[in-house]
């Protein structure tokens, strides 16, 4: 018996919710358009030298980070399988300590804003920019796939009769076109507004869940001890959702995922680029702390709306109504009716749009100026405007690739799981190169290139032969990080010690002074 839904639920995809959804999305876009215009004016922030403050950047970092994976994915993961889904929440937050302690300040102090900039500073620019832009592109595509899957299930649930494939293609193409031709979307303000909306929606959702339990936490948690659902063999099973191990039967799976989440964030291109929008390392530090506060509160709330969906709706109901990625919106429908459903869908959609924008921008700019201009054309544009055109084309290719892969994967893959894979690729390829170039004097070009390429290929190959993509998996773990991160570090080290190239010690000294003092990041002058 499914005791989880005592009230009759309105059929998915009613007309009212669709119209309300469109109205909310339109309102969000209008608000962002106004604030972007008001705050940046004719000349952009950056050019005008007016920079944003720590807490604003913190909100923007949080906005970039709280993607569809966090909101839709984690909620679904917890709603379907309990405790293990909460591990994503924990990992996503603790990862910021890696960012705060190891990369944020040195990066800002040195005046660099992409990984390629840091690597090219001490090493031979062309090979490292080529390798770095390849891995940046790959990480972005992995991250994008998750957003596309999320957008597809949302739209399928909102418009009756539309298949998942059509939804992904439609929404994906619209998003990419909007990002490429639309303008203003990638500004910091979009992320700020989105972060505020997402926090608002999550708080409201959490309060409404707790209201059902008379704001009694003990009552809330005890309702989680016996959640019934139908197992694959048709039997009804009752499980305690607070028990670990309902997804990860093998403890090594937990450790591998944990490693990907902990080390991946520091290698995400769209997060790193944010530290350049603040005036100095001090503000970079403050923005990480603000982001940690906001992100932390958000992830703690996944307890309420993730477990809340399990207790109030039950896994069977969620599986039948949009699947794992729709747990949070379905919970909103149950608690607040069609209006709240439409609102939460719109917030999720705006989240996806903003993250897709950020990713497309960082992927395509990285490719256009790291690879096309700096590698192929030795740092000079052949024809004026060429770089912009290459960036546009790249954006379309990245979009198209992620749409195709999202369709192949299908709607039932949890988006938090997909993002976990993007984190694994970032941790294996980008992190070793970045850490070594900031902290290891002997590190050289060969090491950076082998580290990046080995980390990249090993993580992708291990994903393809993992249990989720193969019937007879050659690699036992769902997330490759446990093997691919050490491989990335090992390759970077081996590549360095095996090659004869000895990098200039002077450049390392200079980078050390810059990274520790911020000297030169803001056009230093002697007086």
């Amino acid at each position, binding site marked *: 018996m499914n005791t989880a839904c005592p009230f009759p639920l309105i059929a998915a995809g009613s007309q009212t919710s669709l119209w309300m959804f469109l109205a909310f999305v339109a309102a969000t876009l209008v608000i962002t358009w106004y604030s972007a215009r008001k705050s940046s004016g004719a000349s952009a922030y*950056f050019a005008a030298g007016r920079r944003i403050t720590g807490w604003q950047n913190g909100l923007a970092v949080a906005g970039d980070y709280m993607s569809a994976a966090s909101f839709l994915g984690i909620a679904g993961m917890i709603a379907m399988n309990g405790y293990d889904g909460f591990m994503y929440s924990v990992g996503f937050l603790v990862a910021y300590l890696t960012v705060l302690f190891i990369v944020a300040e040195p990066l800002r102090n040195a005046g660099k804003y992409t990984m390629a900039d840091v690597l090219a500073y001490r090493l031979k620019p062309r090979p490292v920019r080529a390798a770095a832009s390849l891995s940046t592109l790959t990480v972005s595509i992995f991250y994008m796939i998750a957003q596309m899957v999320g957008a597809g299930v949302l739209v399928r649930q909102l418009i009756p009769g539309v298949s998942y494939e059509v939804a992904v293609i439609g929404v994906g193409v619209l998003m990419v076109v909007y990002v490429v031709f639309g303008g203003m979307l990638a500004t910091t303000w979009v992320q700020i507004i989105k972060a505020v909306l997402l926090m608002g929606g999550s708080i409201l959702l959490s309060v409404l869940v707790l209201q059902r339990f008379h704001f009694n936490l003990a009552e809330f948690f005890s309702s989680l001890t016996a959640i019934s659902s139908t197992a694959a063999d048709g039997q009804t099973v009752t499980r305690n959702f607070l*028990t670990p191990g309902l997804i990860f039967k093998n403890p090594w799976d937990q450790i591998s995922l944990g490693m990907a989440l902990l080390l991946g964030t520091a290698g995400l291109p769209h997060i790193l680029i*944010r530290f350049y929008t603040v005036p100095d390392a001090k503000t970079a530090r403050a923005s990480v702390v603000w982001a940690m506060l906001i992100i932390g509160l958000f992830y703690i709330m996944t*307890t309420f709306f993730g477990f809340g969906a399990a207790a109030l709706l039950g896994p069977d109901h969620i599986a039948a109504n949009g699947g794992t990625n729709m747990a949070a919106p379905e919970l909103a429908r149950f608690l607040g009716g069609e209006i709240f459903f439409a609102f939460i869908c719109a917030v999720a959609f705006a989240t996806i749009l903003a993250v897709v924008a950020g990713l497309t921008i960082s992927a395509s700019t990285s490719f256009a100026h790291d690879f096309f201009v700096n590698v192929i054309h030795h740092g000079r544009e052949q024809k004026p405007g060429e770089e912009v055109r290459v960036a546009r084309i790249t954006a379309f290719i990245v979009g198209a690739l992620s749409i195709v892969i999202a369709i192949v994967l299908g709607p039932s893959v949890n988006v938090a799981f997909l993002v976990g894979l993007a984190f694994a690729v970032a941790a294996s390829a980008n992190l070793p190169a970045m850490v070594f170039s900031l902290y290891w004097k002997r590190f050289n070009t060969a090491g950076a290139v082998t580290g990046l390429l080995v980390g990249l290929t090993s993580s992708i190959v291990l994903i393809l032969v993992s249990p989720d993509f193969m019937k007879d998996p050659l690699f036992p773990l769902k997330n490759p990080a446990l093997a691919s991160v050490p491989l990335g570090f090992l390759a970077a080290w081996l590549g360095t010690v095996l090659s004869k190239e000895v990098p200039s010690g002077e450049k390392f000294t200079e980078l050390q002074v810059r990274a520790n*003092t911020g000297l030169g990041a803001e056009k230093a*002058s002697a*007086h």
Partner: protein
Amino acid sequence: MSSPRDDRDYTPIVGAQTDIAPLGRSGPKPEHERTADEDSDPIDWTQIADDRDFKALVRRKARLIVPATVFFIVYYFLLPISVGWFPGLMEKTVWGDVNLAYLYALSQFFMAWLLAAIYVTAAAGWDRSEHALLSKFGVSHK
């Protein structure tokens, strides 16, 4: 689609002018893209790097960052390790129906916030020594 445009300012059409990703130009390389060779400046980096105060500053930072990093990595991985290999202990209920595993997971948030707070407090001190160091060499950020 692309009309003739001004030669100097290629506003990124990807998302129009954005504050995070200015794109397209034919002017000089922006600062963040310069390599050490292109970055000629009057600052004597080696002299600063060899300075006692600079070395002390780097050591002071390391004295906090290294142990703090080791601590959070250990504290974090103890969660999957204890849950994976000591399920009996971690599934013990501690408060109502809430088990040790969930409480430990929740404690990670407070651990992260606490370490971040400690770091920020310490970093304010580093900023002061950094300032003193730079003025000793007669250079400044701006």
